[in-house]
């Protein structure tokens, strides 16, 4: 038998005891090096032991409980998905979130961690596995060919049964040979039922295996060493490794199950959206998903989850009884067990993790992206302060999650407007190098924070904000002409299509992000015509000036608009 890289057999690759919390185990199977680690939620990850960005071993990384951080470069790979969530050089919406390390199938059973080179075969227990309380023996690495190791184990007991998958049953012990490489193996033994004196038994078997190893290694030096297996490392595709030009929403949706719906606070409904199978894609703190609603609308909601927490996304929805928009449908008609289509996570509100001080300011439902940011900073032991402004204590959503944080979290209740401003001013303090503030809340609060911060010396690039989602129902029933002054084009915008869509269809590259009139990316100068503003980005005086518009949602009241494009 020669070993191949494509051998689909499940082999034990570690003992459960080799994976204490916050440790990264270095293993190998069939020539491929593995980084094996247990996350704080108990999940065991078996990954190719190589950082996709720099090629260094991930087994030198720091296990932070939900992410593995490269000690040299700061890359972070998330539990379960192995998706990279952070590149220090690109704090913005970098493609890192799309890069995923290679993962291998994993099963923890009988005190051992099992894996295979691929998932062609399902994991099957070895014969007689189920009805015993197995004690794993001390593993014994041997520099000899796996078949020779198996043969030597077989010679220990003439009544031994050879089982499939390089294993042998000998009395009350089952031996497994882990093929590390063509010329290396690890002997892993399982003892059926706990002996009266486990330590003495463990020492006895360890002595037996040490003798066996020494004999095998002496014999191995007398024959030519086999060539090591040569794993092929797949390159990251250019599509994944390069920066996307603009964050055009991709059409891909996935189906999630509403696992839980609950009242998180007065006026805030929590939704837990779980994957139907496995985990959801990696996301960055501050990221949101587009939720496709039963009434055909699409709405954006921030993910509140902490790092590496990918079994479900938790979002918070404001239950405005008077609201006519998408949130009303979610709150009133979507039930637990329902299926929803959501987009992949996108991030227009990226968090910098190189700040010496981070101030997070939330108002009302604006807590959702900031909760996710606080959880990331918390896990990374980075200093931060979270100020959460609510009208009353009952309106503070996700209270349990906030209380579990270690940073400075203050819930400000029922402050009058001027006191809010004063509190914001005190919380921000004077700006100094490498301080950043993140704000999400009602527009009045955003304006207040921007003005206060600017007055206290905070430069624009240190103030990060995300407007509330545009909850207005967009009236797209009008039809009109647009003249693109610089491109010398006249285009017709019919009812049901946006200016942005029409320009893209005509072959123009125009930047956009949220596509709901909230983020300001598609801000365009208007030369002529009357604008039908439907965004929440522009303030009233900007709207009244009739000189600029958001092409993703706004339209024309006049028959013609001349745009400076």
């Amino acid at each position, binding site marked *: 038998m020669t070993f191949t890289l494509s051998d689909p057999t499940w082999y034990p690759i570690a003992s459960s005891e*080799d994976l204490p919390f916050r440790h990264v*185990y270095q293993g*190998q199977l069939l020539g491929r090096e593995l980084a094996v680690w247990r996350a704080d939620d108990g999940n065991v990850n078996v990954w190719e032991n190589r950082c996709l960005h720099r090629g260094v071993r991930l087994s030198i990384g720091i296990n932070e*409980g939900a992410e593995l951080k490269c000690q040299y470069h700061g890359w972070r790979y998330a539990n379960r998905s192995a998706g990279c969530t952070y590149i220090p050089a690109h704090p913005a919406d970098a493609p890192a979130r799309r890069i995923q390390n290679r993962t291998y199938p994993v099963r923890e059973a009988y005190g051992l961690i099992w894996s295979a080179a691929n998932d062609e075969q399902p994991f099957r227990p070895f014969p007689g596995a189920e009805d015993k309380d197995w004690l794993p023996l001390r*593993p014994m690495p041997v520099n000899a060919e796996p078949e020779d190791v198996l043969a030597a184990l077989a010679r220990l007991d003439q009544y031994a049964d050879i089982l499939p998958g390089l294993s042998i049953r000998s009395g009350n012990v089952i031996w497994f040979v882990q093929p590390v490489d063509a010329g290396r193996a*690890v002997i892993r033994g399982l003892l059926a039922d706990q002996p009266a004196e486990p330590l003495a038994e463990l020492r006895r078997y360890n002595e037996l295996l040490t003798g066996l190893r020494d004999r095998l290694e002496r014999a191995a030096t007398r024959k030519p060493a086999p060539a090591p297996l040569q794993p092929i490392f797949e390159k990251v595709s250019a599509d994944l490794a390069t920066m996307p030009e603009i964050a055009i929403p991709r059409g891909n949706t996935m189906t999630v199950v509403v696992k839980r719906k609950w009242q998180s606070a007065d006026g805030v409904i929590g939704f837990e959206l779980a994957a139907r199978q496995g985990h959801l894609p990696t996301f960055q703190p501050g990221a949101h998903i587009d939720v496709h609603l039963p009434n055909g609308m699409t709405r954006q909601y921030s993910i509140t989850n902490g790092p590496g927490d990918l079994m479900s996304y938790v979002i918070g929805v404001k239950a405005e009884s008077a609201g006519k928009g998408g949130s009303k449908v979610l709150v009133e008609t979507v039930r637990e067990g329902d299926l929803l289509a959501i987009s992949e996570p996108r991030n227009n509100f990226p968090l910098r993790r190189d700040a010496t001080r981070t101030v997070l300011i939330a108002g009302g439902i604006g807590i959702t992206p900031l909760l996710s940011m606080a959880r990331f900073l918390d896990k990374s032991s980075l200093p931060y302060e979270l100020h959460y402004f609510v009208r009353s204590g009952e309106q503070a959503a996700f209270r349990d999650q906030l209380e579990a944080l270690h940073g400075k979290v203050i819930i400000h209740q029922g402050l009058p407007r001027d006191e809010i401003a004063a509190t914001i001013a005190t919380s921000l303090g004077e700006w100094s190098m490498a301080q950043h503030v993140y704000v999400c809340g009602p527009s009045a609060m955003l304006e207040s924070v921007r003005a206060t911060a600017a007055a206290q010396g905070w430069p624009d690039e240190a103030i990060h904000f995300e407007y509330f989602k545009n909850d207005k129902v967009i009236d797209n029933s009008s039809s009109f002409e647009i003249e693109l002054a610089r491109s010398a084009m006249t285009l017709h915008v019919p009812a049901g299509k946006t200016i942005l869509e029409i320009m893209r269809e005509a072959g123009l590259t125009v930047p956009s992000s949220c596509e709901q009139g909230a983020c300001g990316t598609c801000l365009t100068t208007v030369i002529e015509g009357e604008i039908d503003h439907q965004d929440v980005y522009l303030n009233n005086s900007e709207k009244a000036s009739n000189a600029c518009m958001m092409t993703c949602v706004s339209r024309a009241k006049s028959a013609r608009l001349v745009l400076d494009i």
Partner: protein
Amino acid sequence: MTITLYDFELSGNCYKLRLLMSILKLRYDIVPVDFFPGRQHKADWFLKLNPFGQLPVLRDGDLTLSDSGAILAYLAKQYDETGLWFPDDPAITAQVLRWHAVGDDITSTASAARLALGFDYDFNIEKAQKSAHRIFRIMDEHLWFGEREGRDWLCSPAHPTTADIACFPYVMLSEEGGISRQDYPALRRWTDRVRRIPGFVVMSGIFPAGRALEQA
């Protein structure tokens, strides 16, 4: 009294002293010695401090000391009021000294391979690597059974001693000598524990471990 360490940043033996002095919160001055490529440890002025021509050298007032293991013992006995780092119990003293000797063995094997590969020293690399693997096998077995017996460190007290510091650096730097620690999972877990000792400091090639999981 001022403590002065004659130090080479990339020397694991010098790092042992920086590590213990950091743990014990001692203040000290550093005199850099250009071990490589300057070979200042063979210069006349240095040989007057230490005729053996080896780093590190530590001066504490009028006292001049050499040999990292000996200095570790001196610092612990002189400055560690808890008595934990070099315990007085005769049997434990013997254990600690045993592992100080292992620390020297690791220096003459794993560190020699590192010097040959990274510092152009003319040593038999293969022999050094093979001998290092022999020591690591013994350590891994000792530490694996230690974990089953409730012992996290090289010696029997329930806390680290200078023995752990004496053996730690060149285990951590072994990859620089082409010596993989893949076959020694218990040894790797022990290095995590050492890197979590309060007061731990880094050196090039030796990074901190992640925070231990805080038990609720």
